[in-house]
């Protein structure tokens, strides 16, 4: 059996090559440990659009060598160009992709997703911009008094 079947939350079935999907440690462990026959693996919190993006990433990185034991220090936006193109998404979709990468345990995708988010955070000058960029609703905003209080506390560490 050279292929693995996956079902997303909106009941769409995908059939993928084992080599491709084995970049996901979760699927790899499931299939090798449990040794089940052809039943499709359900992914209840991954939608089909998210899975499309994940599959694009897997195809780009199909032939990558396994990562070295000691992680190399990289800059925030030190990614290959195709990954940068892939990550030019709206924030809600990107967050879905990151959650899917976390669930499926694909360390490379998780890494570039987090780095992209960190890069966007760096681009924003202060918290107003972050709120706008990430579309955080007003109910969760901190009040002005709390922010003033926190600024005083931050003085201890950044002052």
């Amino acid at each position, binding site marked *: 059996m050279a292929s693995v079947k996956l079902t997303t939350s909106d009941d769409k079935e995908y059939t993928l090559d084992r080599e491709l999907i084995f970049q996901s440690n979760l699927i790899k462990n499931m299939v090798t440990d*449990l040794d089940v026959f052809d039943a499709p693996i359900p992914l209840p*919190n991954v939608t089909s659009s998210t899975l499309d993006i994940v599959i694009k990433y897997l195809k780009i990185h199909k032939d990558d060598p396994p990562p070295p034991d000691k992680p190399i220090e990289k800059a925030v936006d030190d990614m290959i160009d195709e990954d940068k193109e892939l990550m030019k998404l709206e924030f809600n979709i990107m*967050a879905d992709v990151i959650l899917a990468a976390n669930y499926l345990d694909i360390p490379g995708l998780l890494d570039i997703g987090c780095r992209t988010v960190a890069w966007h955070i*760096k681009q924003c000058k202060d*918290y107003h911009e972050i709120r706008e960029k990430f*579309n955080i609703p007003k109910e969760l*905003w901190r009040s002005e008094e709390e922010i003033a*209080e926190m600024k005083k506390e931050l003085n201890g560490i950044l002052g």
Partner: protein
Amino acid sequence: MLVWALLSIIKGSFSEPSNKKIKSKKVSFERRSVRALSTISSTTTLRKRKQDWIVPPYALDAEIFENIMKWCSPGDAAKLLQVCQVWSGPAAEALYQSPPILYADSFSKLAATLLRKDVMHPYPLLIREFIFTGLAADELYMGDLKECLRLCSNLVSFRIEGCSHLSNLLAQFLTEHAPFLSRIELPGCTISDAFLVQLIRGVTTLRHIDVSFSNVTLSALPVLVRECRYLETLIMTGCRPSPPEMVIDYEASEYYLVGDTLKQYKNTTLKQVSLSYTELTDAMVGYLCRHCDALQYLILEGCNLLTDTAINSIAMHCPTIIELDISLCTQVTDIGLQALAVHLSVQGEKTQRRRPTSFGYTSFQEYTPPQKRYHTIPLSKINLTGCYYITPPAIVLLASKCPNLNTIIIDGCDRLIDWYNHQDSPASPVPTTAREVFSQDSDSDEESFVSAKSRHSFAMENLQSERRLQLSRDQIMRRKREH
């Protein structure tokens, strides 16, 4: 029909990822699925509440947030603290994990924040690491430090560089208030042996100790080796010699204990030891090696009182050694390296051969093919800078016995320079298949690397001449047993 039913049962079992029927050895898989379930519940409830909210990025769980935070600077973390309630918790954690204490007044400001009562986040409990360098270390007040340590009970790592007024009370503070402390670094501080002994007796969870260039003397070494149960790394670079009034007999009666009694004294956790630039003697090295048989990285740079006896003890008692640095130990000669090569390979054979049969005797099938024997020697790097008595045959022997050896540093070894120059000439005894680069410039400080491939061809050439010796020795052994 049956097959379809079976398939649907399996499908049913799969739809609950945290089902106990799945006996997966990988715990991480179960934990992840449980976490994924919690993420699902949070996203679904948020979605139900308001349809027009954009649910992620709040549904990002703590681990992902930590991953993002490690790419952000403290300034970014400060911005994130102010954004929203959900993000400020993880942002505070990332910011306070190792608070930057750079200037003379940084610590007093930090202490003021930590000691405040009603703050937004539990800052002291978030602190995992304290690092005091430069001016901050000079201006450190013990009283402030004590107050902060009392509150920061999750402290894991502690470092002060070059503080000239550390008192022994610090050991007591750490014992009382830091139950998880595993790493302590006090280079250049004025601490004494008494401080160190009190510290290791009080804080029993220490794994990494660095007391370089302090007033600690070498007489603290036996105490450290004997009493620290979890210690993995010990750095005592530049420590002072034992005071003349303390006479420790390193060859004492414990050396003659056998079997189980000696095992009680053996330290099996110490893996990395650095005793560079100390007045270490052969007896001390012997003591260290006899008592620590799991040593992997041994750095003895500049210990110029060491002779071949020390190398012999290392070779005899530490079969797991991976990296050995004996640069500037000028009294080391070929004999030391030969001892290293021979003893390590013998140790390797011993571990291969111990296969008892039902009668308790080792089995007769003791002949293991030569390739198998060599795999157990893990030595991969040796630094012989400045050991000018070393000659080529010793290096050749060492290389042939240790297949994992891929780095030999020989800066300043004068007798090896000429050998390199004549390497390509037809009259040289060195096999010309080896294409190796040795550093011949005694002034250079760069490392020289020997490729692993040429190492193996080197070893194999020598092996062929040795194999004849091996076979005849085994034939002799067999004949002896038969009689």
